[in-house]
């Protein structure tokens, strides 16, 4: 085995080349990790939304809440007559009727327009989403034209900031509070009182969905069966996990772009690394000849070069990954075509994404270094020693 110091010293001797290669790899890893982090953020939001025992009931065949209408009487029947619904510590049933409308909103950053989800809720909705806490301002009072929204929405949309007025179907809602929803789907929404939104949207007597929590897995299955099978209900009832999984297609575009970026930059970086290593092999032909004359095996020379290219690549990979840290948690949004509105999520550079970045670096190091390394040992020792 060639002593590691030799290889590392060589990298340091040709420090300009080494630096350029590290920088190039770093940028490539940075761009890729950024793209994957976007996809991971979207996945995360769709995953954490929905506890394991939570169920959402909508009109049969509806693809999303905005396409669903349930009569309020039916919603009341669900709450009052269905067994197996969990209760909170005060004995109140965890069953929440909700009315969802979407309104056009303008982004603060570029003036682009998209749709925002306005959710009309009762106090039961908060019990179902314990992760949602108001962190600034106060709660919206029922019956008043007040609303609360997520930190991300309040920053990213005009009229949604704390104290501002959001235009909703010709009326105005004052944003009185800002909440933190643990990166769940609620981060994309504006919440107000059910009665208020029913009045504004002229949809009294109906709700979009009923969300509830079952007491256990068995109860969940039974409730599902009753809601879908019973004549009096005949609804679509799916677990919240399934509901959000159906929306996962929203991330397809971003993830595809991420993989395209990954593949192209990988190939580009491999060629660049190969260039560097070939140059090194040619310049150091005499050194290699010497090493082999001294008795080091072919394999150890190959290994040594691979180590060099890996070191360069991993150093670049590390810098690239570190470069994404400032962007971590930065929230953004895109269109969720299933709900036809904006879904808010943040960049997430979790262990999987960072590992993907490191994997890219390793691939670049190995694929880029293997051919030059093997080439290095092909020359006859005598010829190599003759090189200048």
């Amino acid at each position: 085995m060639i002593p590691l110091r030799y290889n590392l010293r060589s990298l340091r001797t040709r420090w300009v080349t080494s630096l350029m290669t590290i920088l190039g790899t770093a940028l490539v890893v940075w761009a890729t990790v950024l793209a994957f982090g976007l996809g991971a953020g979207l996945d995360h939001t769709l995953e954490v939304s929905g506890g394991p025992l939570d169920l959402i009931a909508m009109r049969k065949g509806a693809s999303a809440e905005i396409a669903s209408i349930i009569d309020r009487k039916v919603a009341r029947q669900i709450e009052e007559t269905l067994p197996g619904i969990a209760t909170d510590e005060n004995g109140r049933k965890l069953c929440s009727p909700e009315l969802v409308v979407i309104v056009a909103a303008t982004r603060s950053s570029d003036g682009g327009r998209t749709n925002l989800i306005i959710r009309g809720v009762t106090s039961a909705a908060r019990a179902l989403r314990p992760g949602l806490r108001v962190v600034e301002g106060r709660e919206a009072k029922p019956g008043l034209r007040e609303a609360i929204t997520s930190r991300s929405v309040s920053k990213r949309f005009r009229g949604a900031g704390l104290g501002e007025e959001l235009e909703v179907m010709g009326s105005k809602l004052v944003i009185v509070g800002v909440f933190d929803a643990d990166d769940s789907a609620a981060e994309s929404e504006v919440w107000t009182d059910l009665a208020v939104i029913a009045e504004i949207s002229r949809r009294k007597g109906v709700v979009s969905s009923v969300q509830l929590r079952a007491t256990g897995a068995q109860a969940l299955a039974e409730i599902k069966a009753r809601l879908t099978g019973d004549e009096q209900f005949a609804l679509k009832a799916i677990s919240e996990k399934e509901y959000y999984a159906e929306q996962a297609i929203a991330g397809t575009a971003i993830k595809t772009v991420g993989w395209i970026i990954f593949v192209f930059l990988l190939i580009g970086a491999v060629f660049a690394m190969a260039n560097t290593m070939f140059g090194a092999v040619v310049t150091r032909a005499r050194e290699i000849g010497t090493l082999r004359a001294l008795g080091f095996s072919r394999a150890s020379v190959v290994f040594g070069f691979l180590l060099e290219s890996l070191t360069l690549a991993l150093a670049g990979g590390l810098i690239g990954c570190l470069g994404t840290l400032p962007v971590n948690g930065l929230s953004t949004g895109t269109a969720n075509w299933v709900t036809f509105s904006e879904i808010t999520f943040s960049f997430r550079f979790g262990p999987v994404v960072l590992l993907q970045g490191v994997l890219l670096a390793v691939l670049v190091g190995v694929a880029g270094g293997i051919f030059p390394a093997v080439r290095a040992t092909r020359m006859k020792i005598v010829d190599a020693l003759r090189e200048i």
Partner: protein
Amino acid sequence: MKFLPYIFKNVFRNKLRTGFTVLSIAMSLFLVTLLYGFLASQENLAAQSAGYNRLVVTHRQGLTSLLPVAHLDKLRTIEGVKAATQMSWFGGKYKDDRLPFTQFAVDAQAMMNVFDELTLPADQLSQWRKDTGGCVVGTRIAHHRGWRLGDKIVLKGAFYDVDLELTVDGFYDGSETADLDMLWFHWAYLDESLKAKRSPIAGLIGMVMLKTASADDLPEVARQIEARFTSSDAPARAMTEQAFQQMFSEMVGNVQAFIRNTALAVVFALVCVAANAMAMSLRERTREIAVLKAIGFQRGTVLRLVLGESLAIALLGGFLGALGAKLGVLALVRFADLSRFPLPGINVFDIPWITALYALGLAAAIGLASGLVPAWRAAGVSVVAGLRKVV
């Protein structure tokens, strides 16, 4: 110019190194062309619709609010309106598709008048008009899904609470960049089905697409439309087709910034890569450059020779990358079924030549930037020291 052969000789001196550099630049510029090309393609699409003099009329509160069908008749009476049809987006689930392909409930004859740049054989049009449960589909989606005349298409209602069974009565066609992935059926059929279920949304339409006699009529007609319905229960908003399409790309988000940043990082990386390769190449030629200077070549000339070399390499890579992207996308749109892909405008993705040219310009910039330092160093080589060098 007379030095071009010399420059090319040097470029291909070390074929492996040049090859790798060119490929590295090509791959990265392929990506950049793809990304920028998509943005440009969206813009072009929107700009193209400008020529058709069409307005989209929706409920003022947006697409999810419906308009009464009576609005359609009133719209047809406005001066300057040549033709108008309702277009209710159905959004039905077809087989196992996770996202609905584009389906619209329309008025058959009016639809062909509003979209007069699209063609439908006269016999197919008359068959469709006779068949209440009939539909026509775009040639592209028909090709990908294997639909033929007379095939039955079942759409399960996801947005509307009715299931539809439609018969394919014809195929509409258009230019290369037209959206040929849609399905059109009779609004009357949808309405009848809704009325049968006593649905509260019977008699309502999603939006109206109308065509004006000329481009000059557009602003006045739009103004009249909004004024006409301003105090109605269902106030309307009129926008050009261009603005309407832009709305969808805007929904996708601040992609522009993301793409620009990625492209910037890639370009930066490329400058490093290309500069590295140039530096390596020149290191080997110190003696040669010293000889050049010794026989009388000026510093400036040497500088230009080296810059020319790095420019040539970068342009080769840029050419491959840009052309590759343009052809790749052409092939993708022709052979792949993009109607299921959740990105508006992807099914008519076409990289404009100007974007490919821009990518080439980027390559030239990379070539110049990466060659600057090596060229400067080469020009500054001391003749005596250079001649003494063994390598």
